[in-house]
């Protein structure tokens, strides 16, 4: 079971969960599994062509994964996948 860490800005779409466990065996499949579970998350994570949005980074451990090139990277039960979005600060308007 790989573990996906959900960042604060996206927890609104995961019922406030900060992590998600998946039995998928690649990075991309794990992310697909995540948005199947939480459909509202999909448009925030993927663009219309199902590519991860450019203001979101995906990491396995401390290494960046480019889902287009190495999204098939295999994951196992010890793998930590991090979703890291651009954040800018706390101002509201």
């Amino acid at each position, binding site marked *: 079971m790989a573990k996906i*860490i959900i*960042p*604060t*800005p*996206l927890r*609104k*779409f995961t019922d406030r969960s*900060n992590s998600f466990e998946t039995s998928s065996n690649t990075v991309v499949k794990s992310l697909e599994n995540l948005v199947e579970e939480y459909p509202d998350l999909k*448009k*925030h994570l993927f663009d219309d062509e199902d590519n991860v*949005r*450019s*203001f979101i*980074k995906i*990491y396995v451990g*401390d*290494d*960046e994964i480019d889902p287009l090139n190495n999204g098939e990277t295999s994951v196992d039960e010890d793998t930590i996948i*991090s979703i*890291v*979005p*651009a*954040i*800018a*600060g*706390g*101002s*509201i*308007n």
Partner: protein
Amino acid sequence: MYNGQQIKSNGNISFDKKELAHYNRHLIIPEFGMEGQQKLKSAKVLVVGTGGLGSPLLQYLAAAGVGTIGILDFDIVEESNLHRQVLFGISDVGKPKVEAAKHKLSEINPHIDIHVHNVRLTSENALDIIKDYDVVADGTDNFPTRYLVNDACVFLDKPNIYASIFQFEGQVSVFNYVDSNGERGPNYRDLFPTPPPPGLVPSCAEAGVLGVLPGIIGSIQANEVIKVITDVGDPLAGRLFLFDALSFITRTVKVKKRSDNPLTGDHPTQTELIDYQEFCGIPDDENGNNDINEITVQEFKDKLDNGVDIQIIDVREPYEYEISNLGGELIPLNTILEQHEKISRDKPVVVHCKAGVRSARAIRQLNESYGFDNLYNLKGGIIEYAKQVDETVPQY
């Protein structure tokens, strides 16, 4: 190898008796010593943003003895700042932040020079302001300024100490840092090539921040500034530190340079500063919201006083509505299209949020998707209403 970013250890820099006492606990660290303290005194650091991050950052940089500190902010101190901006107290409310900050820092350390820039950083003034400093610390709260600071630092060859916060989460990195081998590290555009378009996560509607978080993250940022200046330790160049205050999960991930970076990639396409509001998809304030109808708070009040039948739609979040409201119907921005049938078509509809940005976005979405023509954006939102019309409406 020559490194243009390096702060020189200047043997001519001396300290009087009071300074030596002030910096004693630095001087007795073997790796730091007199040379480290001299580098700090020689250094000129610009802190962009005097908010949550700027508060601990400025206090620690001043206390540590950074010789010249630039403070840049255009804002005034408001009560809603005080839960996290510990540089300020209640008596500072209403004062320019840079002036209040200078006063406080002068008390923390009278041996340093403090320069204030009471302006908004723009593409027009950024290069001129930043060029006089050795290191820039980015503690801003919006994407356009982050990209502006990044790009200006790249063009001027300055290290950019970056920190960012959102609710319970913080990020820190050191961008555009040239190490002792002359190797230049990645910058913000390597990490995030483009900002989130307005309306996508993280949107302003969900913002806010735990008060103590900028204290933690800004202190780490100050530590990186001092490391870069003194050349002590390994700066967070090519790495991004992530902190989650709720779960206490901390991670440090790698940041790689991108070959398609428009400034520093294989084929640079951008050689000067650009319009960062446009880059971030934000309508230019000065051009106003020409494409939608607007109403001022005074006009709005007059209509209410004259008994004009209007519908009021509030597109903020429920927790904001709880703090204060104008009696409007609550339809948060991210549900506005789903709930369009609740919005009247046969009378004027005033749409508002906190300051007018989200409501403008809501009106654009409704006009484009459902062809409304009777929607009016309340200029300046409930905050402007509270300031100009009804002081009893709580501001936040």
